[in-house]
C-alpha cells in the first residue's frame, strides 16, 4: 500500500455541509437581463394588450335610472322630484336587460311620461344626482347636477346617456342577438369545410410529390407555395372576376352566388393550401420505407397499403395540418370581407362592430369569442406536434418511389389541376389589374396602377409596406433569435423560461384582428408611457413581429436544438464570454435558419391585413390594407393591381433570399457539405 490507498474520509456521521449559493457569472447576468427584456417585450406587446382587450369586453354600459330626477309643472307649480327609476317601476316599462346598452346608448325621457305630448304647455325639469353619467339635449351634452328646464317640445329632445361599470352584460347581449352569435356557427362551418377540402387536396398533392416519379415536381412545389406570397383577400378578388355576375366562367356555379360561403371556402382553400402542404409533405417524408417493404412482402394491395401504412403514419401530420388550416380560416378577415357578402364571420364581425358601429366593447366581446376556437385549435395542434416528434424513429429509412406509369400520369394530372387553380387565380388578378374598365373596356393599360387617385394611400402605401416588411424582418429576427437563444441556452431560471416559452407560443393562437384591436386599447391609452409609438411605423413593426412570433420562434428553437448542448460549457471552460460563442459559432451555424426567419417575417409583413388594419396611420398606410380598402371602395381592379405588386415584391424577396442563402451557404456553411 502506498499513498494511492483510499483516502481518509471525514469522520462519520456525515453532517450536511452548508448550502452553496452559486455566484452568477457576468454571462449569466447578461443573459438573464436579455431574457427579462424579451419577456418584457412579449408582456408589453402581447399580454398587456390582451388584458386591456379582455377588460374592455367586460366594460359595460347601462342607463342608471336612479341617477336622474324629474319635476313636472303642468301649470300648477312644480311637482316633487321623482327619479326615473321610480317612474319606470310604476310603468314597468324597462327591465334591467333593456337598460343594458353600449357606450353609444341613448334613452328618450318622454317614455317615462305616458301622457306626454310635445304640444302640451307642460314644463319639465331634469337633473342628475351624481356626476357619473350625462344626458343630451339634442346633441348638446349636459354633465352637471343642476336642474334643467325644458318645454314639452324641447323635452322630447332630451335623451339620457349610460354610465359605465363592469360585468357580463356585453356577453349576455352578444348571445341574445342571433345576428351576432350566428357568426360562430358560420365561422365554424366554413372553417370545417375549408379544412376538409384543403387537407384532402394538399394530401393528394403531397402524396403525388412524395410517392410518384412524375415529372415537374420542382415546378409543382414552387407553384404550390405561391399563395403564401399574396394577401389572403387576393383570391377573393380573382374569384369575383371569375365567378361574379360579370365573371368569365360564372356559368360553372350554376346560378349560385360566389358572394358567400362558396367564395369564402374557395378562397380559403387557395390561401391555406401551402400551409397544409408543407406539414403533410413533412409527415409523408418521414414515413418509413421499411413498412412499405413489409407491406409488399405481405402482398398487400396498393389500396390496402395506403390505408394501413400511409394514412396511419401520416396521421399526426394530417391532424396538425387540419388544425392549422382551421385556425387560419377562422381567424382570417380579408377574404370574408371581400367575398363573404352577408355571410357573417366572426373576424368580420369584429370589424363591423368597431369600424361600422364604433362599438369597441362588443368588438372586444367578439374577439374573445373568436379566441376560443382559435386557442382550441392551437392547443390540439401543439399536442399533436409533440406526439409526432416522438413517433419518428432515427432508424427510419426514407421511402424511394418507383416508377409506375399509370399512377405517375394520374399524379401529374392531379397536380396540374391544382397548379392550374393556383396559377389561374393569380393570372386572373394580373389580367384584371391590366384591364381598363371591366367589363366594358377590355383594352389593356396601366391606369389601375395609378394608386394616387384611389383610397388606400397610393404608392406610398406600397413603399411603406416594403419598409414595414424590411424592419419587421430585421427587428423580428433579432428579437426572436436572441430570445430563443436565451431560452434554450441559459442555465436555471426554469420558471422564467417556461413562462417565456408559453408567451412565445401564444401569438399563434391570437387572431390578428384581436391583436390589432388589443393594441388600440393598450397603446392608445394616454396613461400608457408607450403611447408615443401609437400611429407610427414602430407599432406596426411591433405588432407584426408579435403576430408572427411563434413560427419564427419555433424555427429558431429547432435550429438551436441541433447545436451541441455543451458548446456553452466548453466556451465557459475556455473563459470565453457567451457573446463570442454566439457571434463566432451560434449565429454562423444557424444562419440558414436565421435567413428563413427573416424571409418568413418579410413575406408575412407584406401580406398581413388583419393585425394592422386598426393600427396604420396616414403616414403608414400599407399595401395590403390598401388592397382591402380599394376593394371595399369598389376599386377592384386597382386592388388587384396592388395585390399583384405585393406578389411580385415577395417573389423578388424570395429570390433574393434564395440567392443570399446560396451565397451564405457557400461561404459560411462549407462545413455542411462535407
Amino acid at each position: 500500500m502506498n499513498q494511492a490507498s483510499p483516502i481518509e474520509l471525514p469522520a462519520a456521521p456525515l453532517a450536511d455541509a452548508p448550502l452553496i449559493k452559486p455566484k452568477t457569472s457576468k454571462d449569466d447576468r447578461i443573459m438573464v437581463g436579455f431574457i427579462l427584456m424579451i419577456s418584457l417585450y412579449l408582456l408589453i406587446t402581447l399580454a398587456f394588450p390582451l388584458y386591456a382587450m379582455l377588460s374592455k369586453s367586460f366594460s359595460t354600459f347601462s342607463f342608471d335610472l336612479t341617477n336622474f330626477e324629474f319635476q313636472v309643472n303642468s301649470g300648477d307649480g312644480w311637482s316633487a322630484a321623482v327619479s326615473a327609476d321610480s317612474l319606470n317601476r310604476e310603468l314597468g316599462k324597462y327591465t334591467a336587460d333593456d337598460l343594458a346598452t353600449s357606450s353609444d346608448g341613448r334613452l328618450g325621457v318622454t317614455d317615462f311620461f305616458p301622457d306626454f305630448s310635445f304640444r302640451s304647455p307642460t314644463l319639465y325639469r331634469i337633473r342628475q344626482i351624481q356626476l357619473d353619467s350625462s344626458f343630451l339635449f339634442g346633441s348638446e351634452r349636459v354633465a352637471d347636477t343642476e336642474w334643467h328646464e325644458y318645454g314639452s317640445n324641447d323635452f322630447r329632445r332630451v335623451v339620457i346617456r349610460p354610465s359605465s361599470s363592469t360585468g357580463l352584460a356585453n356577453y349576455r347581449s352578444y348571445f341574445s342577438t342571433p345576428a351576432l352569435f350566428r357568426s360562430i356557427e358560420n365561422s365554424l362551418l366554413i372553417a370545417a369545410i375549408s379544412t376538409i377540402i384543403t387537407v384532402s387536396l394538399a394530401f393528394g398533392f403531397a402524396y403525388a410529390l412524395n410517392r410518384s416519379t412524375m415529372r415537374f415536381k420542382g415546378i409543382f412545389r414552387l407553384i404550390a407555395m405561391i399563395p403564401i406570397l399574396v394577401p389572403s383577400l387576393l383570391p377573393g378578388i380573382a374569384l369575383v372576376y371569375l365567378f361574379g355576375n360579370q365573371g368569365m366562367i360564372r356559368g360553372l356555379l350554376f346560378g349560385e352566388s360566389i358572394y358567400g360561403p362558396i367564395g369564402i371556402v374557395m378562397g380559403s382553400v387557395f390561401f391555406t393550401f401551402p400551409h397544409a402542404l408543407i406539414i403533410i409533405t413533412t409527415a409523408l417524408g418521414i414515413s418509413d420505407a421499411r413498412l412499405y417493404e413489409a407491406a409488399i412482402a405481405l402482398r398487400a394491395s396498393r389500396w390496402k397499403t395506403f390505408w394501413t401504412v400511409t394514412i396511419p403514419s401520416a396521421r399526426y401530420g394530417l391532424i396538425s395540418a387540419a388544425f392549422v388550416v382551421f385556425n387560419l380560416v377562422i381567424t382570417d378577415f380579408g377574404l370574408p370581407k371581400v367575398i363573404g357578402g352577408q355571410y357573417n364571420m366572426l373576424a368580420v364581425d369584429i370589424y363591423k362592430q368597431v369600424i361600422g358601429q364604433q362599438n369597441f366593447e362588443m368588438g372586444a366581446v367578439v374577439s374573445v369569442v373568436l379566441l376560443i376556437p382559435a386557442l382550441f385549435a392551437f392547443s390540439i395542434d401543439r399536442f399533436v406536434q409533440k406526439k409526432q416528434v416522438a413517433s419518428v424513429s432515427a432508424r427510419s429509412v426514407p421511402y424511394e418511389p418507383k416508377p409506375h406509369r399509370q399512377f405517375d400520369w394520374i399524379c401529374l394530372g392531379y397536380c396540374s389541376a391544382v397548379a392550374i387553380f393556383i396559377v389561374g387565380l393569380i393570372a386572373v388578378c394580373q389580367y384584371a389589374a391590366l384591364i381598363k374598365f371591366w367589363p366594358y373596356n377590355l383594352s389593356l393599360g396601366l391606369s389601375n396602377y395609378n394608386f394616387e387617385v384611389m383610397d388606400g394611400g397610393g404608392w406610398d402605401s406600397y413603399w411603406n409596406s416594403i419598409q414595414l416588411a424590411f424592419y419587421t424582418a430585421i427587428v423580428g429576427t433579432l428579437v426572436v433569435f436572441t430570445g430563443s437563444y436565451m431560452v434554450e441556452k441559459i442555465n436555471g431560471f426554469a420558471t422564467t423560461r417556461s413562462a417565456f416559452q408559453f408567451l412565445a407560443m401564444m401569438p399563434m393562437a391570437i387572431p390578428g384582428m384581436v391583436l390589432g384591436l388589443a393594441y388600440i386599447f393598450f397603446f392608445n391609452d394616454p396613461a400608457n408611457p408607450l403611447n408615443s409609438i401609437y400611429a407610427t411605423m414602430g407599432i406596426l413593426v411591433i405588432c407584426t413581429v408579435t403576430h408572427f412570433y411563434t413560427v419564427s420562434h419555433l424555427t429558431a428553437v429547432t435550429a438551436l436544438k441541433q447545436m451541441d448542448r455543451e458548446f456553452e460549457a466548453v466556451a465557459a471552460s475556455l473563459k470565453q464570454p457567451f457573446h463570442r460563442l454566439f457571434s463566432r459559432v451560434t449565429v454562423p451555424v444557424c444562419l440558414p435558419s436565421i435567413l428563413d426567419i427573416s424571409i418568413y417575417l418579410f413575406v408575412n409583413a407584406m401580406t398581413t391585413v388583419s393585425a394592422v388594419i386598426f393600427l396604420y396611420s396616414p403616414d403608414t398606410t400599407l399595401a395590403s390594407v390598401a388592397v382591402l380598402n380599394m376593394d371595399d371602395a369598389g376599386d377592384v381592379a386597382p386592388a388587384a393591381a396592388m395585390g399583384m405588386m405585393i406578389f411580385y415584391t415577395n417573389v423578388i424577396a424570395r429570390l433574393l433570399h434564395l440567392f443570399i442563402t446560396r451565397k451564405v451557404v457557400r461561404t459560411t456553411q462549407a462545413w455542411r457539405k462535407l
Partner: protein
Amino acid sequence: MLKKLTRSSLLVACAAAVTMLVPAQSALAATELTVYTAVEAEDLARYAETFNQDHPDIEIKWVRDSTGIVTAKLLAEKNNPQADVIWGLAATSLLLMKSEGMLEPYKPKGVEKLDKKFVDKGAVPTWVGMDAWVASVCYNTVEAAKHGLEPPKTWRDLLKPMYKGHLIMPNPNSSGTGFLDVSSWLQMFGKKSGGWEFMDRLHKNIARYTHSGSKPCKLAAAGEIPIGISFAFRGAKSKAQGAPLEIIVPAEGVGWDMEATAIVAGTSKLEAARTLVDWSITRKANEMYNTGYAVVAMPGVAKPVEHFPPNLLEKMIDNDFEWAANNRKAILAEWLKRYDSKSEAK
C-alpha cells in the same frame, strides 16, 4: 494665402449661418395641423393646395380614411386626441363626437352666409357643413337591358318583383351611407312602421349588402349588379370614367348627409384650427367643394356638376340629424334583427 483663407472661411461661416437660419425660419412660420378627413383621396391635395394659397403658414397633415374608420379612430382616441381639426367627415359622425364632448364649439366668421341646414343648431355651433352627400340609385343601363329591367323612378318602384336579386345596397351596420338610406326611409315612410314595411319588402329584392357605401355604385358601374343604392357623387365619378350608368334620384326624396368641419376639443393649435375652419366656409372653399359635389353649404355657389342629376337639391329630404343620431343604436339593432340574422336564408 491668408487672405484666401479668411475669405473662404468667411464664406463657410456665411453658408453655415444661412443653412441654420433657413429651416429655423420656415419651422417658425409653418404651423402643422393634423386634419382627420374622409374626403376622397384624389381631392385632398387640391383642398390643401387651395387652402395654402390663402394661408401658406399652415401646413395640413392629412389623416384620411373611410368614414367608419376615421370615426372609430377619433372615438378610440377620445382620451388622447391626435387630431386638431376634422375637415370633411359625415355630420352624423360629428354629432356623435359632439355628444361625447369631443368638439370645440366655434362660430366661424361668415357662418351666417351658409344655408342653415348646414350649421350645427347649438348656440355656438360645434360643426359647420361643407357639402351634401346625397343618396341616389346607380343604374347600369347595359346590364339592366340584359335582364329586361325598366329604370325605377321611385323608391317604391324598387319593390317590384322584377328587381329581385338585381339590387345591392350598403349594410347600415358597417356603412354610413347605408344608415343614411335607412334613416331617410324611416323619416319619409314612417318612423314607427312604414319605413320598416318598405325595407321588409325591399330586403326581398336585395342581392346582398356591402360594407362600403360607394361599393354598390362601383359594382353597378362594373356590371356586377344592375342597380346599386349608393350616393350621387360616386355615381357621377363612375359615369365620368365611362361606365354605362344612369344616376336616378327617386321621386319621394333622398336622404343625405353632409361633410362637415369641426375643431377637436383640447387642440394646442386653436388659432390655426380656427383659421382653417374660417376658411373652410368661405366662398372660395365652397367653390372648391363644388368641383365634386353638386350641393354645397353656401347658397348660390353651386354650379351644376357634370353627370350629376340636376334635381338633386330639391329632392333632398329635411333630414333630422339629431333624431337619426339619437336613435341610431335602436335603428341598427332593429335592422340587424330583421335582416341580418336571416340574410343567408335566401
